[in-house]
């Protein structure tokens, strides 16, 4: 097989696998910060119990995130050296900033969170949790800055075949940075909330650790409602930005083949690229035009505005985007039902609802993955939108056979990590939170 195809497979696999962990870590970290703050305020033992348990879970997920993140930092150089030469002037800076401003912060204070309980005061312990949350959220910022510059490059000049920086802050806050960052971080908190809700629901279904589970579920369901609505809100601004800055991507998201005014928004359909149509289409007329331009008759650019060889792969972009969007609506619905049940005091013994929350606990991660696939596939065939094609970005000196070998190694190691992580999380969940009257030892 072609080395570029293999390099893409390797990058896709390792990034998709890595991207399962940081979002849920960010989400859990912020929820732990909230719970720890409640503990400082109220002094109730249950909040301490909750902090301990969720830190134990976070530590496992965080470890896999750190381990798989190392591969990402080096892969641009190993597999995409032509890309690295082309963008190094701009893309390297956020990676270095991520190290200096984020990685050090989160890893250093993670040490305190895991091993430092008896060595610092309650307040400093809470501050350490806050630093982990802030560090991981900043880390997301810098990596999204780097990725957003690939989507909407700004503040550069091309000198000797390389992009050179002209204005650091303009490159950092390129048109897509803030919408993409907001959308991703809010979705990350959502993924942590669903994760916490699922485990808490399981305890309630089993009738175990009831007070712990009720408090955790309350925090999680309220956070899920707030953040699922926020994902939609920020997602809207993100979509408007994509329509303005990457119209070909928006056309692929929505399956708009022909430029039209008063474009409909498709909620379900099967794109037929050869005949340039959407089959089994369920759509709301004029809604897309309205959402993008606040005008039901506005014109939306279709794929016909772009040469065929500059189209993103339409099917995968369309499906990924739509699965993400439908899941987003599902999260809003299900978490609003939860808040309603909580308000009516019927949440904790509503077994069907608890089962649904248990079954849904990993769905936000699925939505995040699909969102990422839509974002990256929608950028194709470009690696840096409008400047450098993916096909021209790979390393020229790495033979295909070596990449194939490393893909096999990654698949083996990552499968092992995933199996171990699932096993260890299930073990921790079965063991449950340690009651504070008993021995609490890790």
């Amino acid at each position, binding site marked *: 097989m072609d080395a570029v195809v293999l390099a893409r497979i390797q990058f896709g696999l390792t990034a998709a696998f890595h991207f399962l962990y940081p979002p849920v870590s960010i989400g859990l970290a912020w929820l732990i910060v909230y719970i720890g703050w409640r503990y400082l305020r109220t002094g109730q033992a249950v909040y301490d119990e909750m902090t301990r348990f969720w830190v134990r879970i976070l530590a496992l997920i965080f470890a896999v995130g750190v*381990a798989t993140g190392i591969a990402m930092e080096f892969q641009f150089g190993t597999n995409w050296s032509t890309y690295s030469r082309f963008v190094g002037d701009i893309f390297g800076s956020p990676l270095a900033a991520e190290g200096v401003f984020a990685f050090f912060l989160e890893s250093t204070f993670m040490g305190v969170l895991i091993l430092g309980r008896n060595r610092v005061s309650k307040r400093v312990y809470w501050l350490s949790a806050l630093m982990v949350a802030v560090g991981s959220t900043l880390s997301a910022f810098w990596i999204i800055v780097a990725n957003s510059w690939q989507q909407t490059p700004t503040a550069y000049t091309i000198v000797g075949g390389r992009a050179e920086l002209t204005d650091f802050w303009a490159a950092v806050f390129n048109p897509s940075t803030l919408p993409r960052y907001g959308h991703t971080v809010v979705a990350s908190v959502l993924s942590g909330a669903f994760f916490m809700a699922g485990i808490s629901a399981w305890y309630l279904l089993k009738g175990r650790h009831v007070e712990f589970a009720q408090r955790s579920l309350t925090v999680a369901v309220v956070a899920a409602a707030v953040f699922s609505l926020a994902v939609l809100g920020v997602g809207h601004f993100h979509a408007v930005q994509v329509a303005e800055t990457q119209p070909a991507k928006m056309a692929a998201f929505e399956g708009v083949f022909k430029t039209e005014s008063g474009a409909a928004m498709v909620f379900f359909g099967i794109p037929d690229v050869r005949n340039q149509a959407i089959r089994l289409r369920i759509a709301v007329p004029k809604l897309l035009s309205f959402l993008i331009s606040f005008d039901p008759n506005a014109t939306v650019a279709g794929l016909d505005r772009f040469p065929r060889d500059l189209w993103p792969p339409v099917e995968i972009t369309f499906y990924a985007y739509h699965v993400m969007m439908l899941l987003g609506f599902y999260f809003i619905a299900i978490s609003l039902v939860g808040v309603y049940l909580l308000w009516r005091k019927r949440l904790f013994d509503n077994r069907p609802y608890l089962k649904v929350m248990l079954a849904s606990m990993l769905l936000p991660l699925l939505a995040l993955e699909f969102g990422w696939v839509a974002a990256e596939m929608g950028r194709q065939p470009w690696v840096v939108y409008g400047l450098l094609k993916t096909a021209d970005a790979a390393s020229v000196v790495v033979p295909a056979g070596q990449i194939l070998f490393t893909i096999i190694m990654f698949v083996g190691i990552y499968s092992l990590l995933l199996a171990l992580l699932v096993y260890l999380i299930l073990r921790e969940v079965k063991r449950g939170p340690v009651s504070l009257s008993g021995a609490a030892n890790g």
Partner: protein
Amino acid sequence: MSHAFLQNAWYLLIGVLLVGYAILDGFDLGVGVLSPFIAKNEKERRSLIRAIGPFWDGNEVWLLTAGGALFAAFPHVYATVFSGFYLALMLVLYALILRAVSFEFGHRVESAKWRRAWGWVFFAGSLIPALLTGVAVGNVMRGVPLDAQMEFAGDFFSLVNPFALVVGLAGLAMFIMQGAAYLTVKTNGALAQRARKAGIWAWAALVVLLVVAGAMVVADVPERLDNYTRNPIAFAVPLAALALLILTRVSLQRGTPRRTFLLSSLSIAAIMGIWGAANHPYLLPARNVAAYGLTIFNASASQKTLQTMFIIALIGVPLVLAYTAYVYWVFRGKVQPREEHY
């Protein structure tokens, strides 16, 4: 700030990051390599892990940040070295990935088999990076075949050569010495005694390997001595390394643990300084055609990027050092045999 000033400043700053990595992650990699040899039972093995538990992750960030800074400041070097040393780097990655999870996964199941298995993962995950980092440094010092487009022009086997291997082993010995010195600070009794002895052996191996490596440079790449003959003041660096190594040896014999660790750390900085002073302005010399070599001038980012990054470093690094020092202070003193987790 002029471009040339910034290019030199970044040569120094990348050096600082690499020295920080060698001193800090050096001790926890060293502890990992020593672990099967000096821990006689499960309790001692746990003490070793406890000794580095709160720090290893922050220490490894020095490597990640050096990688990011290299990408930003000298993108051509990042691109050439990482794609050229592909398989070796991937091997280091796999080792670091498995080692990273061994800390969290290794203690979660109360089973002797489980713990033993993770103990070996921890050992191998420490040994491979500790050895291969030096092999990479050896190749960078010796130079590699490059072409006119700055691309690596060799193959996997051009990286396997006696000089690189000697430097790799020297690096390994250096990390073991550093790990041993650290353990004398963090542990008590028989374990600390064994660490001290291991440190003395590692010191001896390091000195022999450095002498051999020095002789090989004189014989094989004498142009690496040009900086020294041109500016004899540069000889201060190897002389300082020599003096610090002697003091480290004396301190390993009868000094306080903290002093030993400090001296070992300073020795590492000076030893790496020998390499830095010899290679300047080359980041990656070419072995075939000298003009193809990557220098701080032909491989760097633009003046604008270097200046922005310089400001980021000036703001960020003191912050990092401050809270890193704080966390080392929080976990100061000897490891307690059973300390509460979480």
